[in-house]
């Protein structure tokens, strides 16, 4: 097997579409979990059994998607430093947008603003932490490249 064939065999694992699908699954699941969770927790009164069941089913579906996306991102689809930075910023944007929608929905319903802010806050904090980590990792790798090329040159 030639070098070209070996690298061609890896193309599908390295494709942009695959990385996008993995990040999308993770984000969709996370946003859904935050959204459904906040709506459920923000309900003013006790809910009927069927409604609670529906909320629980939605939450489980979203958590499953988030878990699947997380597994793809960490184990199956290689996300290199640049990809992680981009994914982290997309995640942060999604977290901020979700928080805004949750708060707006809570204000419109006239209750549950605190819960919306708390859930959104956690979501934004996690996304922010991931973004900071991704930037730090990329910076460390770039620093190492400079050190190594400096050594190579001198």
């Amino acid at each position, binding site marked *: *097997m030639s*070098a070209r064939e*070996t*690298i061609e*065999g*890896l193309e599908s*694992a*390295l494709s942009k579409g695959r990385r996008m699908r993995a990040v999308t699954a993770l984000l969709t699941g996370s946003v859904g979990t935050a959204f459904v969770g906040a709506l459920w927790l923000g309900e003013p009164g006790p809910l009927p059994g069927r409604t609670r069941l529906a909320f629980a089913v939605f939450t489980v579906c979203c958590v499953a998607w988030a878990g699947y996306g997380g597994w793809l991102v960490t*184990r*199956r*689809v*290689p*996300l*290199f*430093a*640049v*990809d*992680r930075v981009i994914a982290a910023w997309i995640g942060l944007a999604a977290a901020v947008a979700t928080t805004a929608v949750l708060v707006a929905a809570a204000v419109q319903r006239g209750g549950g603003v605190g819960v919306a802010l708390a859930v959104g806050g956690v979501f934004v904090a996690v996304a922010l932490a991931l973004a900071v980590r991704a930037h730090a990792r*990329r910076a460390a*790798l*770039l620093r*190492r*490249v400079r050190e*190594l*090329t400096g050594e*190579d040159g001198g």
Partner: protein
Amino acid sequence: MTDELLVVRAQLGERAALAELVDRWRVPVWTYVRRMLDAERADDVAQEVWLAVVRGLPRLREPDRFAPWLFTIARRSVTDRLRGRYAREHEALAADRAIVEDPVEALVDRAELVGLLAELPVPEREILVLFYLEDLSIEDCARICQVPVGTVKSRLNRARRLSREHLERKGYRA
């Protein structure tokens, strides 16, 4: 360019660095896999190794330890194939086929070192391949095979002794 620099660049997302890394280590990986398994499965397993390497590369924390990490992955893939009754039967069948259907391959297999390696038990064979063919240190061999350094040394000694006996036997017969 050093391996470490290539690895770090690949981790950053430079596709050219990744391609160069694959190109540089493709033959050593294939050689290791081929010496441990039959020719039929070597290409597939080598490709499987590279897929695992690409998936794990972003998480590699010690880029300067790339070679031991790479061979640890290769060893895991080879061990998976060698494990179980089916694998043993498949290997025996493949070896028979290689001799019957492909006389050139059979001749190659009878070349000194390859023939010698095929005679050795798997633990001794892999140490011999890693130490002599891949030029890895005893410490790296120990890390890859997840055994103490002393075990690597004793396996090397046993491999040398078995090889000597094998050669003497062949010489005696010739």
